[in-house]
């Protein structure tokens, strides 16, 4: 049972600190939406407001047509997976999963049937009688998910559910979560500070900063067309270069959007989008840069080339380590010509605080 979530003008203050500053957001039925942002950006406060553990100062949250602000957490019918999993240590796996069913007055036989089914859905069949302290981290995570979905809640909230696991297991469980979401078709709101996780899992990502939503978009759009310097910097690695650093070659100005004449506009340059080309190369719709190689870092699957532009800006080029591409990398100290297709970059306003004594 997937529901639409409508959040309007939500404000939450803690003393002088504004955790949520007029946040509005609509999550579609069956959508997997990720709240992404640095710590203190308001993503956890937003999740806690949805769950009913934080009380917003103003604004409204609706699940379907039902207003839920002010409603007790137990009456919201929301499944939640906690960062610490919050599995009850004094109950078995089966009792944990059946707990929400018991609270809803379901009979014993039905409870057991539901528990059995949901445990196989999270690939833990037959674990009913295990104790929580006998489970590994990944197994606990699965049980926490099972407990959150067993009562068929309207929406499911997940608060960094994979952050306690090691990298390999995390990537496995990401795929499992994605498949589970596809099978259940439920609305999921997911919080993470891991941008790669957000890109992998989400239908849409909402990047939060200072209690507001900086941008909300599909993963690919978020990465390829960041709306601001903050988003460009937060999602993936990027360099922000003034357009004057490069030499444009037959650029289609219309494609660059409304910021093309703004003096504060900078190019978002991702290291993997840069190509090392021959000196005389001049393809249309490209920006060209001339740089001198400063350092080369071999990292196994990739090679990072650190270079300095003639204008003094530092730039990083990411190359794969295949023979053909690695051969094209000049030696340290040598000059190189870099090409960037106009579709591989976008313009943003550089509003980042400047470091230095005059900075506030």
């Amino acid at each position, binding site marked *: 049972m997937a529901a639409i979530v409508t959040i309007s003008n939500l404000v939450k203050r803690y003393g002088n600190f504004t955790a949520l500053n007029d946040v509005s957001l609509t999550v579609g039925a069956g959508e997997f939406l990720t709240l992404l942002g640095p710590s203190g950006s308001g993503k956890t406060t937003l999740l806690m407001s949805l769950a009913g553990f934080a009380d917003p100062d103003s604004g409204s949250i609706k699940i379907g047509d039902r207003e839920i602000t002010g409603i007790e957490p137990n009456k919201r019918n929301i499944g939640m997976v906690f960062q610490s999993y*919050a599995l009850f240590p004094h109950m078995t796996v089966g009792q944990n999963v059946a707990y929400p069913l018991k609270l809803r007055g379901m009979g014993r036989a039905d409870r057991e049937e539901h528990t059995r089914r949901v445990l196989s859905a999270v690939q833990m069949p037959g674990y009913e009688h295990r104790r929580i302290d006998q489970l590994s981290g990944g197994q606990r995570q699965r049980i926490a998910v099972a407990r959150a979905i067993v009562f068929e809640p309207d929406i499911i909230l997940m608060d960094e559910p994979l952050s306690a696991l090691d990298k390999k297991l995390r990537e496995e469980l990401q795929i499992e979560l994605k498949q589970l979401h596809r099978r259940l078709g439920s609305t999921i709101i997911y919080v993470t500070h891991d941008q790669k996780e957000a890109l992998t899992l989400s239908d849409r990502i909402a990047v939060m900063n200072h209690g507001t939503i900086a941008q909300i978009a599909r993963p690919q759009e978020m990465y390829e067309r960041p709306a601001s310097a903050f988003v460009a910097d937060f999602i993936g690695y990027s360099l922000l270069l003034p357009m004057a650093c490069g030499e444009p070659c037959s650029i289609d100005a219309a494609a660059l959007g409304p910021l093309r004449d703004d003096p504060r506009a900078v190019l978002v340059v991702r290291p993997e989008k840069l190509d090392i080309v021959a000196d005389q190369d001049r393809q249309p719709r490209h920006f060209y840069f001339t740089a001198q190689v400063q350092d080369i870092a071999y990292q196994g699957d990739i090679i990072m080339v650190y270079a300095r532009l003639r204008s003094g800006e530092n730039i990083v080029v990411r190359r794969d380590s295949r023979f053909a591409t690695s051969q094209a990398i000049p030696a340290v100290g040598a000059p190189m010509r870099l090409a960037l297709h106009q579709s591989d970059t976008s313009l943003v306003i550089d509003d980042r605080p400047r470091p230095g004594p005059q900075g506030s």
Partner: protein
Amino acid sequence: MAAAGRRRAARVWPLAAPGVALVSLVSLPFVWLSLLSFVADGSLSLANYARMVENPSYQTIVLKTLQLSAVVTIVVIAVGYPTAYFIHTRSRITATVLLACVAIPFWTSLLVRTYAWMVILQRNGIVNGWLQDIGLIERPLRLSNSFLGTSIGMIHIMLPFFIFPLYSAMKQIDMDLVRAARSLGASRTKAFWQVFVPLSGPGLFAGSLLTFVLCLGFYVTPQLLGGGNVTVISMKIQENITNYSDWGAASALGVVLLVVVAGLLLGVKKLGARLEAQ
């Protein structure tokens, strides 16, 4: 080689001094005193134990001691658990202040506190005076020199012993567990009883046991607040020694008290292990 070994031995031996002192000053007298209970009229006998079985006054005393300890423990749980929970739910600063309020009487001498209760509870003391003033009672209640007075004094003394271990157990509880129960559909009350209370079980258990065991050996408070109307095992021990110089009888009572406490601890440990295994 032998000389070096001797020199090393000479250096190491002094380290045994605390052990020797402990054995000679504590363990040996303890064993000797315990053995005295098996001696009556200068010969080995079980007369000291037989008397306890035959003489009904001894059974009354043991029962009174158990009854007093049980009443005090139950009231301490009833008052202490909500107190510990209240402190637990306050902000850090408030909690620190409240804990200090619990700790200050804890640091005050037991004798001083018992005398304070004697003043408060006496026939024309504060409580009786106040109750008469507001017209709730006509004649003063028998608050001191009674089982009630003794219980009140002991409850006050035992509360910190219960609250501190319980509070630290509550602090260990991950409050996300209570939030999880709420999000799964549990009301505030259900989340408290089905999640918080079971998780505070070990602390509740430790605190109650500590309270009960300490109550069994209480002497000063029943002596002063009981006013001769409450006789517990420790008072009978003292009476046997100072009034009758009957070390055997006193020792037998001590051994019984020790066995009861040891049996209680063992039983509780077994019970805990069985609950754990389930």
